[in-house]
């Protein structure tokens, strides 16, 4: 109770700060000022196994930056679960960091608040130009037709990870390339308390990522051309049903996965309980759970029968990744630009992306041999040829919650043995759509 009170008080203070900030009201012009040139505050998202690992990874790099520019960077690593709320609070109060990480799928939602520095030609010029970045990564940095709200920092994509030993024992020679093969292969693997595929049924974001790809493969979109939600179109219903049916009908996902939301499916994979997972940049997690490199193989995420990964109906991943944004009201705009330039420089891109097992969104850094390993080649090719950014609309964040929750509830039905039908899927998606603002 006391914590609730304290939280209430904190919110109150934040609201008050917001009120006074609004009262002041003139810090609304294009970019920040340079009244505190010697210091920057940086909120890094939690990328590594834990916060201490991130501090250890980023610390030396920030020191390097300080030695070169004389600008001291105060680092705070923010856990994923808190990040969006923290950003919203900072936006409302105007008391945010100077530079921060955002999940790239939030770009348009956060762009709509008007709190982030727009990356116009001039700002891009200051960090070496827009052309240095991979196009799909820039595409996930803000709404189409507007200056991006952030700059890509780490890129990731989905791949199919499979356990070589379990495949070998079941006499399966190659990973499934289509969904039909996934089901037939999966049935062979799902026996004796072991399961073919892992899922994170209670993880809203993961649900969205999978549903988005399947929706594309059914030729559908979750937002129509005018940017209005179209969650419950027949094709989307089919796509969501196909995903939940992997548990409900095909029975190749363990019912217990319906309550997973803390990467338990990766643990099951590493422990030899499930044979496959669809995941983004999972290698470091597997080694952390005791697997050795070579124990697992990496293949592209399955596509519809007869297709090979590509664009349109053969899209097999969302463009995943982390972007770097600058708060518009920073009091060190020059320093912030220098910092973004440093973090997206060829050299730092290689160091940081190697550390995190991600792909550099900077073209020049991709050629480094470290990114030519089997895992990363699949991820890189996916990003280059068959990944699409999630809908870049201001309501993206709400979409993740409402549709992600609908899929969570459908998985709960499937796990409890209740039927998952076209009607029940449509009803959930219709409800999700009606919960969207306006």
């Amino acid at each position, binding site marked *: 109770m006391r914590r*609730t009170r304290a939280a209430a008080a904190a919110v*109150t203070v934040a609201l*008050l700060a917001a009120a006074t900030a609004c009262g002041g009201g003139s810090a609304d012009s294009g970019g920040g000022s340079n009244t505190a040139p010697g210091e920057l505050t940086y909120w890094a998202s939690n990328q590594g196994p834990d916060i201490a690992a991130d501090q250890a990874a980023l610390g030396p790099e920030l020191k390097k930056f300080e030695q070169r520019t004389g600008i001291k960077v105060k680092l705070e690593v923010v856990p994923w679960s808190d990040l969006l709320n923290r950003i919203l609070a900072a936006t409302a109060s105007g008391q945010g960091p100077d530079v921060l990480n955002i999940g790239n799928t939030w770009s348009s*939602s956060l762009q709509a608040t*008007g709190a982030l520095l727009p990356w116009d030609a001039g700002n891009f010029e200051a960090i070496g130009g827009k052309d240095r970045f991979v196009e799909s990564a820039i595409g996930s940095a803000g709404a189409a037709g507007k200056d991006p709200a952030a700059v890509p920092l780490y890129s990731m994509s989905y791949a199919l990870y499979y356990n070589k030993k379990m495949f070998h024992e079941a006499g399966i020679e190659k990973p499934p390339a289509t969904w039909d093969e996934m089901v037939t292969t999966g049935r062979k693997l799902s026996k004796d308390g072991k399961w073919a595929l892992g899922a994170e049924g*209670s993880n809203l974001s993961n649900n969205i990522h999978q549903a988005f790809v399947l929706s594309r493969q059914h030729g559908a979109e979750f937002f129509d051309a005018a940017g209005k939600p179209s969650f419950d179109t027949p094709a989307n219903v089919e796509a969501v049903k196909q995903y939940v049916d992997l548990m409900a009908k095909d029975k190749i996902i363990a019912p217990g996965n319906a309550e997973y939301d803390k990467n338990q499916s990766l643990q099951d994979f590493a422990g030899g309980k499930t044979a496959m997972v669809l995941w983004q940049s999972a290698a470091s997690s597997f080694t952390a759970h005791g697997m050795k490199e070579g124990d697992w193989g990496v293949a592209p995420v399955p596509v519809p029968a007869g297709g090979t990964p590509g664009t349109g109906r053969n899209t097999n991943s969302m463009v995943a990744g982390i972007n770097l944004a600058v708060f518009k009201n920073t009091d060190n705009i020059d320093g912030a630009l220098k910092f973004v330039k440093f973090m997206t420089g060829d050299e730092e891109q290689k160091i940081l992306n190697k550390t995190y097992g991600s792909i550099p969104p900077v073209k020049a850094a991709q050629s480094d041999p470290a990114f030519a390993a089997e895992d990363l080649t699949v991820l890189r090719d996916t990003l280059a040829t068959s990944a699409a950014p999630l809908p870049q609309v201001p309501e993206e*964040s709400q979409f993740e919650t*409402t549709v992600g929750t609908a899929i969570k509830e459908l998985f709960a039905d499937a796990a*409890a043995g209740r039927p998952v039908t076209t009607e029940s899927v449509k009803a959930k998606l219709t409800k999700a759509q009606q919960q969207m*603002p306006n």
Partner: protein
Amino acid sequence: MTSAPTAMPSDTGPDAGADAQAGAGAAPRPPRAAVRVRRTGRMRPTGRLRRTALPYLLLLPALLLELFIHLVPMVMGILMSFRELTQFFIRDWSRAPWTGLRNYELAVDVNRPVGEALLGSFLTTCLFTLLSVGLCWLLGTAAAVFTQESFRGRGFLRALFLVPYALPVYAAVITWVFMFQRDNGLVNHVLHDQLGLGGAEHTFWLIGDNSFWALLTVSVWKGWPFAFLVVTAALQNIPGDLYEAAALDGAGVWQQIRRITLPSLGAVNQVLVLVLFLWTFNDFNTPFVLFGKAAPEAADLISVHIYQSSFVTWNFGTGSAMSVLLLLFLLLVTAGYLLVTTRGRRHDDAC
């Protein structure tokens, strides 16, 4: 037990009377204070001013805090509830378009999904609160009565009972999350594997309909020690002679509890139940840590529901309207409750 002095009603105590008279300036005081009074008497105007202003001055910090912590945000919340406050305007909410009662219409229209979900969540919360408060009270009172008698290890047992109350909420509830996990959790291990209840198939506790019972379990586990604490304190105030007299008249243990203990707890119980009700109805931490930001429908408590409506779907205007409605409901219930219970007490006094 030296319970007699504390049992004396404080408003008739000697201290209270002295204070009141000191305020009027003519009280019999200890010599030193009297000297001081005479001295200040020489510069009367400032002295009097100081004496009349001082209480207000001492109250001022509390008043200011009350203003800033409760009143201002409340007024801001009410103002926000009349606006269309989405992500486009959170940076300067005063610019958000005025929408009149639209947010309220959205919240109460049970034929549309937002209102329907809110009503569902409200009813769930009512049932949940009723059960949780009832069980907390029952367990707390039973444990307090049980530990009233002196026996070996009583102190230890009392301390043990208070553990859930002393633990940080987050750590405690996270532990419950682990215990409720379907495949590796302790709850299913005990229920299914060891006791053989509910068949061989493990039960889901954190998703689906059973989540309600999981939430109730954690809520009662967390809430009853407070009831225990309050009732234990209240029991100390019941004079021992009452029990002795009753025992002499041949009353058994159960009769003593019914005729002496429970009636004597009346006033304390009124406050206890009200506080438990408000805490449980508004509890955010327990469901949020247990289920994350998307609670299963069966355990969708209203505080998390409103949080989701405002902070997760970024519809702060509608969220504010829901909060105002909730506040009105709680005020009404509290006022009604106090009216009923204080009338009862006046009746008692008259007897």
